[in-house]
């Protein structure tokens, strides 16, 4: 298997159950690989080092929130063009607007859409 043929998804989320579920789901997808980061700084580092094809980003993270890392990723040349999908438990209009204004491709409210629909979104932004 040639590793670099795989599309890499970086999941930045401190909820271990969510990351486990996403990992299980990705196992079913052909040609996808998953990397997990549990906080903002680890997420940022892995975004630079691993060069993922898409980032799934939570907003409520320990220490720094997801919006901080989103702006940072968008101002960094290496990650500026990496599509970012926000996946958060908060569905407030203000949050969604802010996320999209900061450059996220799309905003998903956890639980509101199905896992398959989330994967459709991922494929859409790739």
């Amino acid at each position, binding site marked *: 298997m040639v590793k670099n043929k795989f599309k890499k998804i970086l999941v930045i989320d401190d909820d271990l159950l969510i990351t486990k579920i996403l990992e299980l789901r990705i196992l*079913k997808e052909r040609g996808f690989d998953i990397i997990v980061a549990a906080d903002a700084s680890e997420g940022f580092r892995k975004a630079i080092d691993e060069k993922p094809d898409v980032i799934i980003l939570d907003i409520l993270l320990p220490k720094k929130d997801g919006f901080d890392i989103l702006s940072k990723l968008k101002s960094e040349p290496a990650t500026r063009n990496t599509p970012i999908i926000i996946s958060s438990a908060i569905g407030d209009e203000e949050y969604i607007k802010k996320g999209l204004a900061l450059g996220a491709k799309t905003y998903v409210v956890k*639980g509101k859409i199905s896992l398959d629909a989330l994967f459709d979104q991922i494929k859409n932004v790739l």
Partner: protein
Amino acid sequence: MNQFNLRQEVKKMVMILSGIPDGIAVVDKEGRIIFSNPTAEVITAYLGADILGKKIDQVFKFQCEKNDSDVFFVEILKGEKAVRFGENCRLIRNDGQLVPLEMIASPIYDEVGDFHGSLIALRDLTEEQKIKNRQREFLSFVSHQLRLPLGSFRWGIEIMLSDKKKLDPVHRELMEDLYNVVIRLVAFVHDLLEISRLEEGRIELKPSPVNIVKIIKETFEEFKNLATGFNIKVSFFPSLGKSDNLPNIFVDPDRFKDIFRNLISNGLTFNTIGGSLIIEAKQATSEEILKLTRHNNLVQGMEQYLESVLKKNGQDTKFLILSIADAGLGIPKNEQPKIFSSFFRARNAIEKSTSGSGSGLYFTKAIVENSGGRIFFESEENKGTTFYLIFPTL
């Protein structure tokens, strides 16, 4: 009783009025303040001597989100009935501070029924609003805490259900039932959050001129299968024939769809198998609306509403009456006054369908009113319910 006598009457009552913990002010029929108690002075940040003799609208200036206090002050001077004001408004005190305040004015008549002035009760709502805010914060916190694990449940169960071979039929059925429960809980939490957002005034409406015929037909498409399943005959605007010739109204199209999603869903769910659902619309003048609502005890404040719309949009403003009539369960008489409360579900509605959070009509009413409309209904148990929506036309 002449004006002098009103002063005399008030003088006799000074000890009583002064002791009332709410703010009290008395105005004469020209709207000049002739008495205020100490609480009224604290609320307005005026010294008693500075209030006396001033016109009521000089002392009570409001900062409001939508409505304005002019209609209220005009009503006070008319002296025809008790009037209330203050929702979504804050009083600009003499020292510039803002206070949430409710004013209730009751006309004072003499023995022969002549109007002499008004007694105005002032209620500082600061503490009440603090408690409400705490409730809202709690509601919002709990809902967010619930949404996170529910998201994991949903996606987790989807993974288990996605591999058909791994579950035996019994476990699979159980898992599907659990999945439906989770989906219902997700919808309930969504409703909770929407209600708390609505109460905090955080739902932004984006109104535009809307052709309701088109929007209602589009919304109904989502319920086509449900209607077919219950064998319910749905008629759209029978009086219009094939035309969609109705004046536009100025509402947020997405929120308007939400309103009709709720009303159509209720109209189908609480209908009888083989029943009917009639959606109708017509133009009406304010007098025609008053005639329609005159004998409906549950409709309150319609006259003031119509008056304020005419004042704002012009005296020749026409209205659109939309109605959606089902031939279903109807709402039990004793439960009718509660039907627009949050999380209320009528007894017979619970018997018919156990799902539903009881927030639909509460939400619908709030959206309708925030969009400048009104909603009310007529209902008879075992015969059916008709909901009416009223909006000024463009």
